[in-house]
């Protein structure tokens, strides 16, 4: 039993965090230079290495197709997105799109306007699909785990922003973080994110090891982590007062990403229905 990342993975996390702080919106070329592109296509890396990056990219609110391209796992030099619930994230940044029937299409179609303006959602219009490599169950599992990890990055960042703010802001002559109505609410947000972090890491390990519990683990992790990220953002917005409600403050962008994650590939309720079916059948 060892539920921790290796020191190399910790180094990768540090490297990713400092790089993304300076370049929150890197190009695929920049990511390739870092050696991150193709991390899941064999070599020395496992899904746990990718997991570190997925979480850090979420934390940085990265707005590109890196994770989807890795998860699609298709050979060749094309950059891929994956159709999720009929919608294609970052369609304008990719050349190919993987659909749940495991076919690949060229990335042509309509660009859609979205609440989270960084998603670049499109709807596929091309009909030149050809068979793609792999199985959808595997893609879906990797995707659910990656969405969970992204959500953990978002939720943790939202809480950090709130902690910094309430430790500084004063009202009635005291730091607002000393009021229990504020601190206890943030504790609940923090705890929810930390619990879902454990689920997301468990799910990532199950994917890496193709563990027999992988289906349950990714469903549990995705549903819980996305809900925790939404909760963390809502608590953070409340703790910020008026400034948290503005377009100018970054919080709304975390919140909108969290709301997308909550719905993508099914709300928690849908995953819990599957989990219940599995638990109650045996």
């Amino acid at each position, binding site marked *: 039993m060892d539920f921790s990342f290796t020191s190399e993975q910790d180094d990768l996390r540090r490297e990713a965090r400092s790089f993304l702080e300076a370049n929150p919106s890197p190009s695929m070329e920049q990511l390739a230079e870092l050696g991150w592109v193709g991390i899941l296509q064999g070599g020395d890396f496992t899904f746990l290495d990718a997991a570190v990056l997925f979480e850090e990219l979420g934390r940085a609110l990265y707005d590109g197709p890196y994770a989807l391209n890795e998860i699609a796992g298709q050979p060749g030099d094309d950059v891929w997105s994956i159709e999720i619930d009929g919608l294609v994230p970052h369609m304008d940044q990719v050349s190919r799109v993987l659909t749940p029937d495991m076919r690949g299409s060229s990335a042509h179609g309509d660009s859609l306007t979205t609440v989270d303006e960084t998603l670049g959602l499109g709807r596929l219009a091309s009909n030149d699909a050809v068979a793609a490599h792999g199985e959808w169950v595997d893609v879906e599992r990797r995707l659910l785990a990656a969405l969970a990890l992204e959500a953990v990055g978002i939720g943790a960042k939202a809480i950090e922003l709130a902690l910094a703010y309430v430790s500084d802001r004063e009202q009635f002559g005291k730091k607002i973080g*000393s009021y229990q109505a504020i601190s206890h609410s943030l504790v609940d947000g923090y705890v929810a994110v930390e619990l879902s972090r454990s689920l997301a890491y468990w799910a990532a390990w199950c994917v890496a090891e193709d563990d027999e519990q992988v289906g349950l683990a990714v469903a549990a992790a995705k549903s819980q982590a996305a809900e925790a990220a939404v909760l963390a953002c809502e608590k953070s917005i409340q703790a910020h007062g008026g400034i948290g409600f503005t377009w100018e403050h970054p919080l709304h962008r975390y919140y909108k990403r969290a709301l997308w994650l909550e719905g993508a590939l099914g709300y928690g309720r849908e995953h819990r229905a599957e989990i219940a079916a599995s638990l109650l059948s045996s």
Partner: protein
Amino acid sequence: MELRDTPQEAAFRQEVRNFIAQNLPSSSKARGARRFEDADRDWSRKLGEAGYAGLTWPKEYGGAGAPYSHQAIFLEELARAEAPSHLGVIGLGMAGPTIMAWGSPEQKERYLSKILTADEIWCQGFSEPDAGSDLAASRTRIDDQGDHFLVNGQKVWSSFAHIADFCIIVGLGLPDEPRYKNLTYVIIDMHAPGVEVRPLVQITGHPEFNEIFFTDVKVPKENLLGTVGEGWQVAMTTLLHERGTLGFALSATLDVAVRKLIALAQERNVTDPILRDRIAREWIELQALKYTNYRSLTTLTKTGIPGPEGSASKLVWSENNQRLTKLALEILGSHAQLTDGSGDGYWQYQQLRSRGNTIEAGTSEILRNIVAERVLGLPRSR
């Protein structure tokens, strides 16, 4: 990251499984891990003899000196078999570690091994009528009389006091000193003259905690832990262990509850999608708690210091257990009111008992203060 057992852990797990299969009395199995006191002394004694009672205690104190992962595996296997835990929870989890940290060689020699064998049961007398969350406000007098201490006062809500042989108490030793420097910590012989225990009936109808009255109780000098006036520091050691060692025991009891919940839902053929949603949620919450405990365990094993993620376990567990037991009642329906002998009353007892979970061992409000201040570094609320 490796979430499977190492070969050594797997072998230990198998050994525990065999031990339980061969030794668990069928009567206590039938009763399940329903109440602490159901764990009879025989079973506790067997756990002690097999070396499972003080798994992580150092060998010099009669423990097995095993890694924390073995403690986790042991508790998981107890939960899997729905077997009761050792009766001496206060001795094992609180009094013992406090004596190891602060006790003299004579005290260690005198007390530790009998905790493991369940020959002596301990209770904790911290709370008082006017000092609950605010433990530093303890007013029970511990007066130095030269060759002994004289103890006068009252403790309350003390679990196991009615069956205990010894009690760890903190009280006012130096009334003129400032807060945190005025307390003294002693071991009290519960059979000494002047000690009176009055059971208090809980919300469940069972008397599982007690008032303790001390009237001119003579306590030998050798029962002091730390120095006179150092009681607060000694008490912090006790509380650190109370919360620190609790994590795995808590997820193990929750594991039993989730297993029983699923069995109930299967038996009642629950098809209502809302109930099924909530059942799945409780299962997910259990996994989240379990894997969070694994993360703390790894941090603890690697650094010797519990990670911050562990401090929230008790908070989350108590709320999970309250939600889960109410859900079980809802599955039972309005007939859950009946106490006429239909059903064994398991869930009715558990649901009422769960209300204590957010009060005992630090209320949820106090735990949130601790997480806010010590984990998140927020400014103090007081």
